[in-house]
């Protein structure tokens, strides 16, 4: 990458952080500020887990543990040592981020080293167990608040730092992929034996992925602790680990772009659905039936309809429009059924069902994840809007 592009992206990143800070902190209600903050943290978590899981291929499912190590370490330290004199709060927060990152990296090293001989499912079990150990350790340590909260952490809320961390995390992972070193991470995922035959130090790569990935999670934890001022072991329960993992898989394992996008979507979707107004039973049934129809037809199209891009897109759109019309018709029809029309479901009750259904549908239609292993690039955008050039035939 040449210098102007580097400078340009740096400026754009700085501008973005500054913009989000002044816009959100200035004019948004507190709960929305919090959502933006948490979304940023989830981006960090998803991208850093993607480094371990997607890029290096080490199936780790205890990512919340590293998040927790960072949060508790920084929070605890901050409670006892916070001294605002002579130091702007953001500088203190950066120091805490570094502390959290170091602590979590150390934890990553501890998990990474013995896990080197393990693969796939076995590694997953170890990381899962490690996550539980951390959580239970905290739960049983009075000093850390036990199963209640670690309370009265100094409140330092900085959206620009959170999103700055997210951008740094994305940049580090992306630049890593561009170097020969990054290639060696991908090589380890592909084939460990071949990688060592090429002279890649597989052990080093795996440990580096764990240390780097968990370090970012730890820094995110430190930011969370100072944003929330109060954290409990439940903040880092196993379902947080699974949500992060889902983000990585859904976005497309190995794709940084995918992780970012999936983190944002999966984080906002349940929050957004909270606000959906109540719908009647007849609408619910109609929508369900039309969604099932759409998915069934789509699945057939994805599997069997191998035509040029344009025709496929038209077929997909036709499916969506068709099932939408079906939904409307059914809705009118079901309104006649009195018991259905009278029943009412609030968005809050349905949101987790919708969330889970969305995941199932996505995995059915696109098991390789939204972005598969591709990355966003301007080249790709350009190609999308150009006539497909005749590709040189591939032989088998």
């Amino acid at each position, binding site marked *: 990458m040449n210098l102007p592009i580097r400078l340009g992206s740096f400026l754009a990143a700085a501008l973005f952080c500054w913009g989000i800070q002044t816009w959100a902190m200035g004019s948004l209600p507190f709960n929305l500020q919090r959502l933006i903050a948490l979304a940023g943290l989830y981006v960090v978590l998803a991208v850093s887990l993607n480094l371990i899981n997607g890029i290096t291929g080490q199936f780790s499912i205890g990512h919340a543990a590293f998040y927790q190590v960072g949060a508790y370490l920084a929070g605890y330290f901050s409670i006892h040592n916070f001294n605002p004199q002579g130091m702007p709060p953001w500088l203190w927060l950066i120091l805490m981020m570094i502390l959290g990152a170091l602590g979590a990296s150390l934890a990553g090293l501890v998990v990474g080293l013995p896990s080197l001989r393990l693969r796939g499912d076995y590694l997953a079990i170890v990381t899962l167990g490690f996550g539980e150990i951390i959580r239970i350790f905290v739960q049983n340590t009075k000093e850390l608040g036990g199963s209640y909260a670690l309370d009265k952490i100094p409140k330092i809320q900085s959206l620009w730092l959170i999103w700055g961390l997210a951008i740094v995390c994305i940049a580090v992972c992306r630049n890593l992929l561009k170097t020969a070193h990054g290639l060696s991470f*991908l090589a380890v995922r*592909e084939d460990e034996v*071949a990688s*060592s*035959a090429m*002279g890649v130090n597989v052990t080093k790569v795996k440990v580096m992925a764990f240390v780097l990935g968990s370090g970012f999670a730890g820094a995110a934890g430190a930011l969370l602790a100072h944003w929330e001022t109060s954290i409990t072991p439940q903040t880092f329960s196993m379902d947080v680990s699974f949500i992060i993992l889902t983000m990585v898989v859904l976005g497309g394992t190995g794709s940084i772009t995918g992780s970012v996008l999936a983190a944002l979507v999966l984080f906002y979707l349940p929050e957004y659905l909270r606000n959906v107004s109540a719908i009647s039973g007849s609408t619910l049934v109609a929508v369900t039936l039309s969604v099932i129809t759409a998915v069934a037809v789509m699945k057939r199209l994805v599997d069997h309809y191998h035509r040029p891009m344009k025709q496929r897109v038209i077929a997909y759109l036709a499916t969506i429009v068709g099932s939408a019309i079906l939904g409307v018709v059914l809705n009118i029809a079901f309104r006649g059924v009195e018991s259905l029309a009278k029943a009412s479901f609030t968005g809050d009750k349905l949101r987790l069902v919708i969330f889970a259904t969305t995941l199932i549908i996505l995995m059915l239609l696109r098991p390789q994840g939204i972005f598969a292993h591709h990355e966003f690039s301007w080249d790709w955008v350009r190609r999308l809007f150009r006539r497909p050039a005749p590709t*040189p035939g*591939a*032989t088998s």
Partner: protein
Amino acid sequence: MLTIRGLNTFYGAIQALEDVSIDVEQGEIVSIIGSNGAGKSTLLRSISGLVKPRSGTVDFEGSTIQELGSDQIVRRGIGHSPEGRRIFTNMSVLENLQLGAFTRSDGEIQKDMDHVMERFPRLRERLKQNAGTLSGGEQQMLAIGRALMSRPKLLLLDEPSMGLAPNLVTEIFRIILDINKEGVTVLVVEQNAFRALEIAHRAYVLETGKIVLSDTGQALLTNPKVKEAYLGG
């Protein structure tokens, strides 16, 4: 160049190599023939550090290497094209070659890459293509090209003819001869005994983990025992 003495390698409780001693001199092509499960691949893996021998010594250019990690061994100048090719199928041909040069940081990587592509023009045509879309012969060429990218002094080839059509096998062995003529010492392991003995300066016969015969390639070709067991009478 390479001196192996009394090598014993185990997989768990199973002994795969028993007291194996071989020599490879600078500039030679040395073949190791043997049937399935004789320990041929294990021998190569023991040399390149992919498995650690339990006892015995592997000396390369005068220093002991059996204690080193595989990355260090590649840096010393031993390139390994492993069994079953093991190319990175989800990566492009170019990335595969770049990974071959992973241990290097000198300025001549591009030059070597050009040289590999001169040798295997098919790879140049498919440079940006996923390696998994290559045909079997092309994949074998990529595997050899990738191993060459580390600029090895000694090239270990594991079953280069596996799964290839006869005319491709001829081509691959011609290429191995070419590589050797340019100064790379080659240690090749093969089930296709005829081809392997034909190009070899010297050869060893490996049976259930033990070296049972060794001679020049030509002598083994006419050896009645070898004829009966490996060359189909």
